[in-house]
């Protein structure tokens, strides 16, 4: 079943064509890779799916629902959550506090409960804290839970970014360059985490430059070049695709 469908999406930034006529589908439970040279439009496509930008033409549908006009937090509420390319974290908060914020969607407290700090709200906060700790431990961040996010090493910050997205219990998690700038052992632990997340039922869409990593984890890969889709297939097919080789090697 196709969870997310993009139909001939185009995006123009005042004359500059960032995406032209890109169509794609994501099936439930798969790991879809999105690759392409710099400036190919990968991040733009992410921004359109997650509601940061609206497409100039075309539409994105999620479970048959048109996402037109929905902004970031509404799309997150539907279950499509993204992580960011830069180290986008609440830097002055501890890891645990970051995670508490990220549990906003799944925690069940209603507005009035949290305003008056009712006993059920306090109980909920304790449960939320346990869930946050569990995810941190699981991702190997248990030892740094009281560290400020800004003080963490790069690899940990990246993991925390994924942990934040995961806390929302998303249907589809969009990962923007999850292993960029990491050392090989950090990459390995990140890939292990991503595979586990996927095995637990979360559909993943990954933008990445690291070919080895993306070939390793993806079920299917879409290749963009200069805003156009030039290939769509399994890692083996992509590796042998003439046009892809051309795009990368010039």
């Amino acid at each position, binding site marked *: 079943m196709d969870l997310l469908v993009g139909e001939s999406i185009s995006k123009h930034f005042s004359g500059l064509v960032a995406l032209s006529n890109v169509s794609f589908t994501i099936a439930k439970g798969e790991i879809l890779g999105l690759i392409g040279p710099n400036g190919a439009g990968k991040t733009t496509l992410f921004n359109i799916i*997650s509601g*940061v930008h609206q497409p100039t033409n075309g539409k994105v549908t999620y479970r048959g629902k048109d996402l037109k006009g929905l*902004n*970031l*937090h509404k799309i*997150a*509420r539907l279950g499509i*959550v*993204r*992580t*960011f390319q830069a180290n*986008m*974290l*609440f*830097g*002055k*908060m501890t890891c645990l*506090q970051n995670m*508490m*914020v*990220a549990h*906003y*969607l799944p925690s069940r*407290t209603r507005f009035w409960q*949290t*305003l*008056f*700090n009712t006993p059920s709200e306090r109980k909920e*906060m304790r449960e939320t804290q346990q869930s946050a700790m569990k995810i941190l431990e699981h991702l190997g961040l248990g030892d740094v839970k009281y560290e400020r996010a800004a003080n963490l090493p790069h690899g940990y910050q990246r993991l925390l970014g994924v942990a*934040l*997205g995961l*806390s*929302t219990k998303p249907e589809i998690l969009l990962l923007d360059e999850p292993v960029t700038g990491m050392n090989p052992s950090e990459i390995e632990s990140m890939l292990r985490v991503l595979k586990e997340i996927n095995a637990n039922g979360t559909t993943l869409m990954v933008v990445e430059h690291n070919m080895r990593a993306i070939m390793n984890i993806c079920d299917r890969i879409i290749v963009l070049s200069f805003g156009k889709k030039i290939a769509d297939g399994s890692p083996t097919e992509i590796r042998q695709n003439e046009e892809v080789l051309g795009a990368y090697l010039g």
Partner: protein
Amino acid sequence: MFKGKALKVSFWLALLIFIFLIPLWVKDPYILHTLIGIGIFSIVALGVRLIMLSGQWSFGQAGFLLVGAYSSALLVTRLGLSFWAAIILAGLITAVFAIAIGYITMRVKAVYFAIITLAIGEAISLSIRAMSGITGGSYGLYNLPAPNPIHLPGLLVEFTSKTPYYYLMLILVIVSALAMYRVERIRGGNLFDAILQKDILAESLGINTLKYRVLAFSVACGFTGMAGAFAAHYYLMTRPDFYGLLHSIYAVTYVIIGGVGSIFGPIIGVILLLSAVEFLRAAAMYQAVAYAVVFLVVILIFPGGLVSLGQQLWARATALLRRATVKRYPEIRSRE
């Protein structure tokens, strides 16, 4: 032995009792009048701080004081409502007004929002002048009634002297501070902190940042409106030039000088600057200059405001105290 929290709580409790007992030994109406003025602007400054915590700057709070003052004055004089119903309705009207303005204008942030609120504050004052049929125009509304007396078993409170006003103001300040503290502490205080630090990340995690910004703005303006209503029935009059741009700007300086980091910051800022104004009555024309100098000195020397200075001193004092105690009673160390 020296639990920081117990010490802190007893300190604030003592301070609160002291503030409650002031009218027992201060009979000078002039001092009570000054304290009431401090109360009014404490509420305004608390609101400015709450708005700042949501990442916005408001330079239009004087306008919301006027909305509250005129709402209450008109409800009492035109519709014959009691003061007590009117002050609560005035707060609600101002809050709803702020929600309407917030949803339209909060799509812009920080400095841009500050400019818009500045314009809105002035627009409110000008609109009141223009609607002279209802509001009395530039002359304002006079001969407003004092709050209706409170009949309690064994106690009759009549608003004929400064003392009952003082207590009413004190209750208003405490209620406002508690309410705004609750809003600030939504979800353990992390939510507004998150919105302030990285609003796009908060959005991506499903948080409707606009909603919470509007919430902070409307709660802040609602209590400001109640303070305005109080003022109208304290001075027994209200005029469109009663609160203007300068008051809005002062409200922001109170918060910055007092410190954004604590809910006591704005109150300390107001107490310091308004009492300074009273001491320097003779040099009133230099008030703005004096504010500017104090403002710059505080920004340059203690960027966290006077509260951050107090917190540092407090930490140092309790550390010294603890060290002295441990020296005298070494067995405490093992318990710590």
